């Protein structure tokens, strides 16, 4: 095959499509066993020992609340472009933003009143 034809094919191939995958991780995966925190029994010290320093602390009228968060997002895009004009013919993007969260609510004396958690970062599809 002649060189100019090869160059032309390569340029067309380059211009035709592009794919991008991106990952973002904010914070550290939640540590500790949430099941060990027992409402009505566990104290703030127990929570700090088990889960570490909270990402956010909220002051409520009837006690504090700790929030632990680990956030991830996965992004993927696919583009088809006109190799000559550069016009984008088609773009497909997909972004998943999921979090693992733990919320611990204390009463005035620093005893856990309620706890709630969800873990969604493991559910994200890789692509």
């Amino acid at each position: 095959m002649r060189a100019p034809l090869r160059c032309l094919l390569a340029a067309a191939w380059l211009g035709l499509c592009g794919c991008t995958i991106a990952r973002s991780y904010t914070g550290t995966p939640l540590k500790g066993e949430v099941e060990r925190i027992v409402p009505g029994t566990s104290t703030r010290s127990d929570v700090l020992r088990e889960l570490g320093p909270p990402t956010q602390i909220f002051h409520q009228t009837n006690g504090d609340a700790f929030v632990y968060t680990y956030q991830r997002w996965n992004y993927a895009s696919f583009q088809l472009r006109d190799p000559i004009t550069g016009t984008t013919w088609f773009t497909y993007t997909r972004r998943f933003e999921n979090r693992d969260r733990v919320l611990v609510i204390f009463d005035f004396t620093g005893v856990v009143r309620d706890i709630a958690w969800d873990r969604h970062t493991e559910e994200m599809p890789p692509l």
Partner: protein
Amino acid sequence: MQRHARLLTRGKWAALVRTLIAPLICTGCVMGRVYRDHPLDEAKIARLERGVTTKAQVLELFGPPQEIEARELTAIGIPFDALLSRRGDKPPEERIVTARWFRYTYSRANAMALVLLLFNYAEFDQKSDMLVIFFDGDGRVEDFAYRKGTAELPRFGFLSRRGRP
């Protein structure tokens, strides 16, 4: 089609395939690092004692915290202006003394991108070392928690990441 098939011998097909694959392996690499604030000294953290260390000692050990919970003053209706001798003055120490907790953080982020011609991959990971110290009514350390999140930061993105990317 038959004419094209005749034109492209096996060698030419191989050349064509090489030409099409070549752009995929022409790569560029981007790496970035972000450092925010100063690393926390673990030797100093080891000196914290519940019920013993005072708020003043904490300030002496670690300096001004990145975050202070000082809402109690406003919660009980004390305006800050009354604590200041003149409007615009630097807040007095009482304002810090009334804080219930301090937070010290040191954050790092690693960014990495592979820029291929037809495929790009980018990764950004931010983690923090965090020390939260709670004080009791006497201004002594009631509780504290520390986590060295930056130790979990992968150095070269997915190449050194543990677990699923």
